[in-house]
Structure formats: structure tokens, C-alpha cells
């Protein structure tokens, strides 16, 4: 006992209450407890203390502990995706290293800028090429590979190309001095006029055999241009050459350029009779050498960039026309070509449907001034007036767009908008998108004269009244202006009579007679 200090004794007692002493030490401690009251007291207190501690207050189990923990773990794992690859304390060092690295890279790039520019230029072309192939996947085929000479004539002179037997689906090109050019592909309205024929055309203008040969050649060039201007890819993407907007004007100008003055008058009448989009401003210019016109038109290089419209995107991209022309070299069976035409048309219609489903209201490509929009019937590409297919611009400006060729009237009904778009040549009730509210309005008893059957004539009157501008008018204002429209129509009729007198004067000056060879 004498050998044990107070601390040693406490240490032994502590271990004794825990039952971890060896037998020798345990005997020593037990002897002390029995002989020394102080030690005994200390032991008792330690034992009580241990007992109290073991019987400590416990906290209640936590319900939902795992739920909360698992949420935290899930959030933690999510955060780890954004964690830095090094401890946070290294952020300043990493930032400094980054700045030094950027400066060094900048110096290296600056020193090798010429070679790098060349490298990236080459790479850019590769990427561009890959992008083009991505948009127009698979084989790219001309949508209009089946057109005959009559259809070429139709498009060259009227800017309308029927794509099916009923002429419900068409390719339509229009020019308006105020709003630029427009290409429309799809169901743009059935044609009222009968299809043109080359034979009748030659007869009407009284073309000489030489002129026929030149015009045939020009139509041949036009056909190639039409074929290579509207392409369709396997993934339902459509590529359209913006220069197609110029073809109509170029063809009318070029044909007129080598005709004799009397023939031009007949040609003018021919266009006027069919409500063609262009009319002459000069019928008296000297005829040009037809060969030079043909050579000039043939030399026009193909466009490199097309408006590419896919179900997902709109782009203005390079498309290799040579590849398409190479495909054209293979002689195909008539049946095979017919099938291709059907397939390509179906792809174009699918694209139109896709765009309509997506409520494709329009996409502007900032670098080029054009806008693509689509509805349930057609795709429209609207080019700003300043965008012109420079390659196709005719040298002689002998024609101008006929005014008020296309008209669009939007009628605002109380429960929604009703848009009616129609053309001089093609207007039918099918074009009129009239909702039930509109129909109800037109059938309402207080205005019995404005029933649905009369709508066509009302809108035609509105067309004359508003000209080529698109107006949004309320139904009530439509009713109010109806009387004014009728008065305007009366005045227009007088103007037309005066125009007829002018035409008759021309006829007297240039009577219709065969041209001497």
C-alpha cells in the first residue's frame, strides 16, 4: 500500500470497477478495499458513478433519419459532378496557373497566327462539309426532276409550277417591289387557269423556227435551273436556291429581248391574258442577238448556297449541285423516275407537316435577309427586297412586277384571327380558312347577304380595295367598308376600260401578222 500513490490507487480502482485488472492487482485492490475505509469509499463512489453513467438518459430514435440522410447524399452526389478536381485551397493557385497558361498560349498563338489561320480555315471547310452532309443526309435528289417543257413554260412565265396532276401542290415564286421575293412550296391553292402549252405559246407569239429553237434552248436551261434549285434529302430536308426567285423575270426578259416588236406586243398580251406576274415596261427596244442571250444565260454559274430547311433547322449552306447533276446523267426508266418523284414529293410534304406540327412561325437568318415560315399547307421563304440572286439578274430591265398580284387579307373575328391568302390566278373556297365563328358571323340573320357563298366575292372586292398590302380588319369594318369597296370597284372598272383602249391602240400600231423570214 505504501508503494501506491494516490494516482496509482485511482488508476487501479478505475480498472477494478471495469473488471480489467489481472489477478495479482485485483487481489491487491480487494485487500485495500476491505482494509482501508477511504479506498472503500472511493470504490463505492466509482461503482455508483459507473452505474449512474450506464443508466444515462437516452434520446428518442429519430424517425425519418434515413430519408433525410439519403436526400442529403443524393444532393451531395449531384454536387460532386460540379466539384473541382482539386481541393478548394488550391483555387488561387489554380487561377494563377490558368492566367499564366492563357498568357503563354496567347503568345504561342500570336507567334503562329498565320499557320493557325490556315489550319482552321481548312478545318472549317471540313466541318462545313460535314454539316452540309448532316443536314441533307443521304442522296440529294432534285424534287422537280420530272417536269416537261410545258411545266417549264408555266414556271418561266407565270412563276407557278404545279407538282401534281390536280395542281393542288405547287411551287410558286412571287416578287413584290415593297416586300421582296417569296418562294412558296406546298398547297398554295388550285389553279384556275388552264395549263400552258409550248405549242400554243409559239402560236400566240408567232415565233419563227429559229426563235423556237432559241426559246427551246432557253427552256432547257430553265429546266436545269429548276431541277437543281429545289432539292430534297432523304431526311425530308429541302434545299432551295434563292436564285430561283429570279428565273421568272430572267426568262420573260430574255424571251422578250430577241423578239421583234410585234412579237413582243403579242407576248405582252399573252402574259397579260394569263395574269402573269411581270409586265413589260418597254416593247420598243431593238431585238438582241438570240445567241448572245443563250450564251449569257448558260454562263451563269450555279448557286453555291441554298436555303436548307429540315424538320429541325433552317440554314443557308453550301450544297454541291454537281453531285446532283452527276446523278442526273444516269439514264433512268420512266417508272423509276416516276417513283422517285412520288417519294420526293412525299418527303417535301412530310417536311411541311413537320413544320406545321412544330408551329413553325418563322426563322430569320441574321446574315442573310430571309425568313422561313411554314403552316399546315406550305413552306414560305421570304427574301428581303435587297436580296437578289445577282447571278440571275437580267441585264435589260424590260419587265416589272405586275402590281397587286398577290393579296392577303386577314379578317379578325372576335374569337380569333382568320387569315385568307389568295392569288389572282388561284383562289378557291378551299383556300379560305374560316373558323366556325366566322361562318356563324357570315350566316347570322341580321346580315343575310353575307353568307359563306358570298365570301369569295367579298374578299375579291377587298383585294381590289386594299391592293397588295396585308391588312388586319375587323368583321364590322369589313361590313362598313363593303359599300365603299363597291364604289372603288366601279372606279377601277373605268380605269380598266381606259387600259383596254391603250391596248387597242398598240394593236393598231402592231397588227397581228406572220413575221417575214
Amino acid at each position, binding site marked *: 500500500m505504501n508503494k501506491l500513490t494516490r*494516482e496509482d490507487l*485511482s*488508476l487501479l*480502482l*478505475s*480498472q477494478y470497477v*471495469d473488471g*480489467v485488472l489481472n489477478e495479482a492487482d485485483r487481489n491487491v485492490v480487494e485487500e485495500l478495499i476491505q482494509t482501508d475505509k477511504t479506498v472503500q469509499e*472511493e470504490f463505492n*463512489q*466509482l461503482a*455508483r*458513478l*459507473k452505474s*449512474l*453513467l*450506464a*443508466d*444515462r*438518459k*437516452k*434520446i428518442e*430514435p*429519430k424517425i425519418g*433519419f*434515413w430519408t*433525410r*440522410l*439519403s*436526400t*442529403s*447524399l*443524393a444532393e*451531395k452526389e449531384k454536387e460532386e459532378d460540379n466539384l473541382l478536381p482539386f481541393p478548394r485551397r488550391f483555387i488561387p493557385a489554380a487561377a494563377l496557373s490558368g492566367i499564366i497558361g492563357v498568357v503563354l498560349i496567347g503568345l504561342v498563338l500570336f507567334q503562329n497566327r498565320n499557320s493557325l489561320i490556315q489550319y482552321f480555315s481548312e478545318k472549317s471547310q471540313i466541318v462545313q462539309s460535314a454539316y452540309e452532309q448532316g443536314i441533307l443526309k443521304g442522296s440529294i435528289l432534285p424534287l422537280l426532276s420530272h417536269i416537261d417543257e410545258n411545266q417549264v413554260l408555266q414556271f418561266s412565265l407565270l412563276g407557278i409550277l404545279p407538282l401534281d396532276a390536280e395542281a393542288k401542290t405547287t411551287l410558286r415564286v412571287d416578287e413584290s417591289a415593297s416586300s421582296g421575293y417569296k418562294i412558296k412550296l406546298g398547297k398554295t391553292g388550285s389553279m384556275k387557269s388552264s395549263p400552258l402549252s409550248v405549242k400554243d405559246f409559239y402560236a400566240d407569239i408567232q415565233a419563227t423556227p429559229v426563235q423556237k429553237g432559241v426559246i427551246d434552248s432557253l427552256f432547257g436551261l430553265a429546266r436545269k435551273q429548276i431541277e437543281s434549285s429545289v432539292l430534297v434529302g432523304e431526311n425530308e430536308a429541302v434545299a432551295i436556291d434563292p436564285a430561283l426567285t429570279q428565273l421568272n423575270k430572267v426568262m420573260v426578259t430574255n424571251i422578250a429581248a430577241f423578239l421583234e416588236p410585234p412579237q413582243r406586243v403579242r407576248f405582252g398580251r399573252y402574259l397579260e391574258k394569263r395574269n402573269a406576274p411581270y409586265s413589260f415596261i418597254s416593247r420598243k427596244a431593238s431585238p438582241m442577238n438570240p445567241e448572245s442571250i443563250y450564251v449569257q444565260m448558260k454562263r451563269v454559274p450555279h448557286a453555291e448556297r441554298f436555303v436548307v430547311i429540315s424538320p429541325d433547322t433552317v440554314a443557308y449552306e453550301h450544297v454541291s449541285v454537281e453531285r446532283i447533276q452527276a446523278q442526273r446523267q444516269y439514264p433512268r426508266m420512266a417508272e423509276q423516275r416516276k417513283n422517285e418523284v412520288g417519294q420526293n414529293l412525299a418527303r417535301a410534304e412530310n417536311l411541311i407537316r413537320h413544320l406545321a406540327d412544330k408551329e413553325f412561325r418563322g426563322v430569320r437568318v441574321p446574315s442573310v435577309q430571309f425568313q422561313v415560315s411554314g403552316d399546315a399547307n406550305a413552306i414560305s421563304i421570304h427574301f428581303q427586297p435587297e436580296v437578289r440572286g445577282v447571278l440571275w439578274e437580267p441585264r435589260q430591265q424590260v419587265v416589272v412586277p405586275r402590281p397587286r398580284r398577290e393579296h392577303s387579307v386577314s379578317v379578325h373575328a372576335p374569337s380569333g384571327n382568320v387569315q385568307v391568302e389568295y392569288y389572282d390566278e388561284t383562289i378557291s373556297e378551299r383556300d379560305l380558312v374560316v373558323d366556325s365563328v366566322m361562318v356563324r358571323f357570315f350566316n347570322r340573320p341580321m346580315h343575310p347577304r353575307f353568307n359563306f357563298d358570298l365570301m369569295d366575292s367579298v374578299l375579291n372586292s377587298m383585294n381590289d380595295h386594299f391592293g397588295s398590302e396585308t391588312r388586319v380588319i375587323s368583321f364590322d369594318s369589313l361590313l362598313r367598308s363593303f359599300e365603299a369597296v363597291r364604289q372603288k370597284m366601279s372606279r377601277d372598272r373605268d380605269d380598266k376600260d381606259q387600259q383596254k383602249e391603250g391596248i387597242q391602240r398598240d394593236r393598231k400600231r402592231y397588227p397581228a401578222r406572220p413575221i417575214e423570214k
Partner: protein
Amino acid sequence: MQNAPTSTYAEKSDEVLITLFQNGERAVYRILVERHQERVRNLIYSIFHDNEVVDDLAQEIFIKAYEALPSFRLDSSFYTWLYRITVNRSRDEMRRRKIRRFLSFQTLEDEANKEFIAKMSVAPENRDAKELVTVGLQALPEKFRSVIILKDLESLSYEEIADVLQCELGTVKSRLSRARTMLRKVLQPLLDEV
């Protein structure tokens, strides 16, 4: 986190579950948590005697364990390893609180002492012995408090305590003895009554 397949793995030992976890069966962590969460929570409560801190700290500890478990080498038992994390994290928390209290011109011990004195001044028949012991523990310095909690409250062996506290066995013995002596002095009035 997926729900743990408790029916399949509930009977497995910690070592088996850890191996499964390390092999990609992260869902078994739920079983480990449910198996040890109460001990961890009670250990935290014993250290802090503060209900508010228990769940937040326990969450942090189990998150830390989850992150470190892939590198756990099974050199020690899972629960001693978990206790080590708990004690270390609790020390950090106490240090943080100490700084906070220091900044507010108080100390943890002062708080504990005041609370303890207040409770001891209550008439003996109204005193709750368990609560007094718990409060008395708060009056001990952290290194003595931890060892006595691990031994007398958590019933760990000396070796396990040495493993948790990362110290020698002799240190555990001497620290435990000193802790008991200190606590015995603090709780003298209560021990005399019992």
C-alpha cells in the same frame, strides 16, 4: 440513393455490407446507417447534451462515412471507425462553438458549470440523477469527457477506445481514471446521497 434491399442483407455483418458497398452496392449503406444511427446519435448527445445538434451532426457524420467508406480497409470494426469520425467531428464542432462563445465572452465550461451549479442547487428530491450526470459530464474537459462516455456510456473496451481516440492503451487507462476522479468530485453531492 436507392432503397436498401433490407430483406436480403439485413442479417449480414458490417464487414460483409461494407464489402458489398465497396463493390458498388451503395444501397446497403442504409442497413449500416439504421444499425448504428442510434449509437452515433446518443454519443453526440452525450458529448453535447444538446438535442438540436444531434441530428445535424449525425447527418454530417454519416455523409462523411459514406464518402470515406470506399477507402475503408476493415482494419478496425465499422462502429469504432464510425465513433472515431463522430468524436473527431464533435471535437471540431466543440472547437467551433468554443470560438463562437469566446467571441461572445463566454466559454463552454462556464456554461456547463453554470448549468450544473443551477441544477445542484435544486432540492435533492427534485433532482434528476440522470440529468445531473449528463450535465456533470459537460463540465469535464473534452478529452476526459470522451473517454468516460466511450467507456461507461457506450461500453467500449479499452482497446476500442484507444482505436477510436487514436491513442495508446495506457493513455486510455490513465485518462479514464482521471476523468472518473474529476467527475466523482463534480458529482460528490449526488454520489453521497445515493
